[in-house]
């Protein structure tokens, strides 16, 4: 009896481990494939058969990428919007959340109603476009930053985090004569690293990946983001008419496909770099959000 139970458990475990292993592979391999394709000579990749390592190793794809001022510019725009958008977003969200985290705040019911209503209802894309246009935000770098500085979702997460901070911390500062601003910057923010890191990760990734606002609200070539340029290249090669037009015939064997995978690697690497550092925070952060949400 005991033995057969053990055998059953062994079969059970094996099935689970195999399935999980397959899932892991399907998650990982696409990234790996894109990586090796970016290091393989473009014209050679088209022949197929490159599965495990670059067959015809080259750095040419990256050289062409970095020599193209359009890609470099787009990369810089993306970096700039990610850094400034995340910092300003964190600042505004946490300031507003700090105010709202005071349980004795007057009119807090009104404030919360305003926030929750905005969470569930929206005017839709077209009226939003009209508002941005009237504010003169279209076709400017500010359109990447200003409209996304406050998200109701992060606001609620930050509020519930701030509420967990022991009141004694603030009280003692009050007694020492510190104003709200001092308390906020010198006491609250430094002890809020977990929630700030969580929000920073999400805001940063959101900014870095965003291409819709570049497509909707910006016409100027100068302001295109990396994600938008990538979308253009992918869309072009995806459309049935085009296909393998060589991006730059002068450079040895670089195709639109190899350029595409190269830009994909460039856009994934920064995310993978920050991911391990912030990961431990966001799991608890999202749980907090899901419990209170």
């Amino acid at each position: 009896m005991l033995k057969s139970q053990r055998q059953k458990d062994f079969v059970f475990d094996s099935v689970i481990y195999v399935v999980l292993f397959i899932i892991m592979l399907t998650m990982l391999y696409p990234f790996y494939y894109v990586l090796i394709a970016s290091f393989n000579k473009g014209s050679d990749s088209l022949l197929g058969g490159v599965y495990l390592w670059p067959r015809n190793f080259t750095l040419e794809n990256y050289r062409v990428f970095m020599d193209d001022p359009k890609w470099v510019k787009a990369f810089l725009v993306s970096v700039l919007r990610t850094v400034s958008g995340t910092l300003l977003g964190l600042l505004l969200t946490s300031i507003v959340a700090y105010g709202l985290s005071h349980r004795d705040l007057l009119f807090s019911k009104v404030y919360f109603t305003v926030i929750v209503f905005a969470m569930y209802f929206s005017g839709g894309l077209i009226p939003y476009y009209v508002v941005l246009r009237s504010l003169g935000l279209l076709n400017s770098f500010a359109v990447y930053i200003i409209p996304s500085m406050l998200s109701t979702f992060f606001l609620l997460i930050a509020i519930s985090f701030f509420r967990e901070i022991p009141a004694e911390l603030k009280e003692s500062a009050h007694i020492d004569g510190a104003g709200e601003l001092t308390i906020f910057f010198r006491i609250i923010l430094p002890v809020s690293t977990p929630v700030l890191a969580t929000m920073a990760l999400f805001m940063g990734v959101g900014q870095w990946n965003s291409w819709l606002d570049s497509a909707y609200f910006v016409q100027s070539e100068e302001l295109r983001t990396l994600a938008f340029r990538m979308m253009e290249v992918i869309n072009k090669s995806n459309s049935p008419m085009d296909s393998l037009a060589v991006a730059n015939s002068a450079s040895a064997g670089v195709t639109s496909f190899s350029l595409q995978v190269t830009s994909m690697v460039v856009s994934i690497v920064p995310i993978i770099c920050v991911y391990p550092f912030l990961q431990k925070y966001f799991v608890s952060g999202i749980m907090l959000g899901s419990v209170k949400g």
Partner: protein
Amino acid sequence: MELETQPKSPGTGGGRRSFLWKRFKKQKVLHLFVGLGMIYLLIFAYTPMFGILMAFKDYSISGGIKGIFTSDWVGLRYFDEFIHDYQFGKLVRNTLVLSLLKVIFAFPAPILLAIMLNEVKHMAFKRFVQTISYLPHFISWVVVVGVSYAFLSADVGVVNKALMAMGFTDEPLAFLTSPNYFWGLAVGSAVWKEMGWWTIIFLAAISGISPSLYEAAEIDGAGRLARIRYITLPGMKGTIVVVLVLTIGSILGGGLVGSNFEQAYLLGNSINNPTSEIVQTYAFRVGLSDGRFSYAAAIDLIQSVISVALIFSSNYIAKRVSGSSLF
């Protein structure tokens, strides 16, 4: 702090008012902080809500914000036009089928993954699988579509090259450029991208189950499957219902099951258009590309009304059926 949290002074009417005023003055910096947020929401969330009026008016972009109020009423003309649009049937069908397929396939996937992960005793392996599985959540749809292209396209796609090399097919299959494959493609990529992410919440639900339940069941002779069925699943029920309500509420927009718009826009092309064009991509095309603002606003509005109706009705049903609900 102590003084502020005291119960409101009963006092007389006038005294109460001056008491409130004193409290307000004491909190003025906080109200300034919150006020910033309120002004922000007023501009970027509430002003667009007034823009919904556009759908009932003959709005022209030259009118700016004021035009929302000053342009002429046309009643339901644009709604009527949309319903009689020759593409209407196709758009509604595609939108609903895509959303429904995603609920059917993308919703159970994280539940299954969470249950399987919970059975893994090897902590390092468990953590590793988990970390890998939510990585795609952080990658943009643009990259996911790029990956699909690298894998599935007829000319460079690895899958087609491999299928042909192994002799399964003589001609490359047009995964990306045939209406027959679009739904499968969209559902598959949504599962791939979001499965691991939603697993976090379900694992959190499982971790809330008391270990003594499992011990008791084990003593009673319950096998692994029986424990999953009678302890793990019932323990997750509340979370499952809440996530299901959220999913159904955001069924048209994407939500848990991945952005329908981005997928349909990025994976769509002129050949798979019969199955890939959905209400949102259509509204985008006629609105921002063709400049028909009122018409697009009307289409948008229909969609958000349906979404709100869905979230309230699914919440109501969830409350009746299982007792747990979102609100």
